[in-house]
């Protein structure tokens, strides 16, 4: 019987082609959209982790409360010891120290007169330490537009856009103007060793990247750091393990009233990441549900038309001694077969699109110029193995649901009425 059904599906283009096309499109959209959005969201989360939140982040309670203002007067002190103990207690994470600083960058000309100024978004990292992994983590080698990574004290990387705005070249001097940890004015000169573009509007505008030792000198932060970031050895954020680490760490200080006591946050709790993380998990299922509904309705309607056309066939089959239930079931079997065919086609197309977008991505830098979001400016899809099969859920479910609905007509109609179609 199945063989008979397959023959009919393959031969009767009206019966199979339209549903296969509808399903292919729906499955294609399910796959490519989930793959794409997951890729984009995944990249965003990854970028945010690398540049801002880490998988885990330690700050003082006071700093955490005002962290958008980069309040270095509230920074952690005695970080050497703290970092050591973090490395000892939680060896599955790489722990690195960073200092963020605001302030003004002044570009003096040959006579020492200011030729331009701009607010800076300063980031001091462990540039000179080989095992911090920070240079790779921030993808600096690939982000360099010109020049090189700082190799000695008083060298700085600045954002390419920033450099152009201030008409700065490699080797030029810039002066940082800001306040120290103790609130007094400070001025420090740096030599530009290179310019960078991270492809994130928020980072590229006023970026100044220096080694953390320079920042400590300049900001009077001996053995201090704004934040200590932890990155899991696997390079991937696992909320469950991060949560355990976080709880274990915070338990030490649970009874302290000190506003300068360190406190740990995991990625999920920072920068509203909880929503994003949940979205990423739910994208695929969201699309599956949406497309099951849309396609079911479409297929129901095309099924209705096809079904009417097929009442003749059902009439003959009833006369040959098939029961209504059997016809209904073969209709659903047919739906499963067509659903599988359509899903295969749609999944292949969808995967092709995902793989293409994984390599090429869509450049949205033009649209992103005003925003401060940590968002990569080329949005890429991401292939995950579940994309191989999730398309079959809406493909087959929609086809079966659509046919179930349109096939109810077989039961609703009197047998003899089905037969009327046989008369002229």
């Amino acid at each position, binding site marked *: 019987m199945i063989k008979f059904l397959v023959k009919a599906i393959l031969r009767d283009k009206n019966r199979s082609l339209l549903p296969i096309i509808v399903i292919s499109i729906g499955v294609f959209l399910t796959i490519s959209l989930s793959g794409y959005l997951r890729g984009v969201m995944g990249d965003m989360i990854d970028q945010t982790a690398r540049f801002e939140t880490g998988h885990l982040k330690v700050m003082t309670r006071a700093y955490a409360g005002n962290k958008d203002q980069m309040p270095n007067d509230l920074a952690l002190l005695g970080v050497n010891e703290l970092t050591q103990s973090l490395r000892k207690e939680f060896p599955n994470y790489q722990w690195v120290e960073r200092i963020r600083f605001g302030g003004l960058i002044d570009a003096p000309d040959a006579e020492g007169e200011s030729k331009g100024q701009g607010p800076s978004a300063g980031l001091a990292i462990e540039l000179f330490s080989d095992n911090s992994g920070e240079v790779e983590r921030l993808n600096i080698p690939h982000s360099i537009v010109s020049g090189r990574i700082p190799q000695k004290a008083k060298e700085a990387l600045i954002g390419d856009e920033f450099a152009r705005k201030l008409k700065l070249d490699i080797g030029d001097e810039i002066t940082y103007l800001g306040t120290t940890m103790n609130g007094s004015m400070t001025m420090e000169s740096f030599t530009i060793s290179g310019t960078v573009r991270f492809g994130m509007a928020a980072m590229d505008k006023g970026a100044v990247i220096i080694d953390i030792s320079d920042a400590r000198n300049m900001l009077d932060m001996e053995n201090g750091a704004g934040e200590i970031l932890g990155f899991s050895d696997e390079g991937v954020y696992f909320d469950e393990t991060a949560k355990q680490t976080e709880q274990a760490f915070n338990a030490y200080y649970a009874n302290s009233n000190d506003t300068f006591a360190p406190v740990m946050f995991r990625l999920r709790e920072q920068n509203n990441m909880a929503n994003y993380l949940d979205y990423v998990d739910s994208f695929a299922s969201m699309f599956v549900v949406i497309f099951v509904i849309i396609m079911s309705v479409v297929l129901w309607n095309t099924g209705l038309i096809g079904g009417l056309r097929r009442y003749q066939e059902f009439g*003959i089959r009833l006369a*040959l001694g*098939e029961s209504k239930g059997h016809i209904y079931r073969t209709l659903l079997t047919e739906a499963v077969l067509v659903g599988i065919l359509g899903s295969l086609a749609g999944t292949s197309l969808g995967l092709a699109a995902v793989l293409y977008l994984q390599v090429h991505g869509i450049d949205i830098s033009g649209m992103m110029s005003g925003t401060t979001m940590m968002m990569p400016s080329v949005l890429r899809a991401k292939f995950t193995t579940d994309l191989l099969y999730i398309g079959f859920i809406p493909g087959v479910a929609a086809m079966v649901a659509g046919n179930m609905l349109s096939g109810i007509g077989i039961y609703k109609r009197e047998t003899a009425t089905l037969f009327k179609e046989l*008369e002229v």
Partner: protein
Amino acid sequence: MSHENIISIEHVSKRFPVGDGEFTALSDITIYFRRGEFAGVVGPSGSGKTTLLNIIGSLDTPTEGTAVVMGRNISNLSHKESARLRNMHLGFIFQVYNLLPVYTVFENVEFALILQHKSAAERKKAVMEALEWVGMAGMARKKPSKISGGEGQRVAIARAMVKRPDLVLADEPTANLDAKNAHAIIQTMKNLNRELHTTFLFSTHDEKVMSYLDRMVHLEDGKVAKDEFIKTKTTKP
């Protein structure tokens, strides 16, 4: 062959709801058919021929009265039981749209046997034999769209006969055929009736068909107007 009644229709009425009221298509019909008969229900259009055949074929049920076919009371059969009755004991031939267009001639005839879960070898043998009976063996691989109306009706006969049913119901089988094909078809059925002792019941207003019938039940306005037994010219070969 026993001479028991293969069909017993007793006080059968059939009313269809139309608008606010009802339309009486059959009214208090009582009639019996015996095994091996080659009989026809004749009468003008709208007289209830198809309605009666549908009830006998358990495609419909009477509003009143009892219709017993092959010992089964049509009114009491479930979907499944009536499907089984058709599958195992009845063959149908309609005026048009007899064949499933996606399947070949062979597959159309084979379909009935697939429903009976016959093995592929059994099916092949039986299908080819049935196609031989109607002279269509040479066209087994063709699609219905590639054969003529007369050939299509012959395939329909083969399909009705392939499972060797007890009773064949043929609703105006010649209505769309020219005279030559009509005669050929009806002659084929007459031969099968004689060789296999299959009971045939026609509905027709075709004079050509009537000339072959052993018995004619005349319907008028849903009532039996006349029930005549005839010694036809072709009773003996």
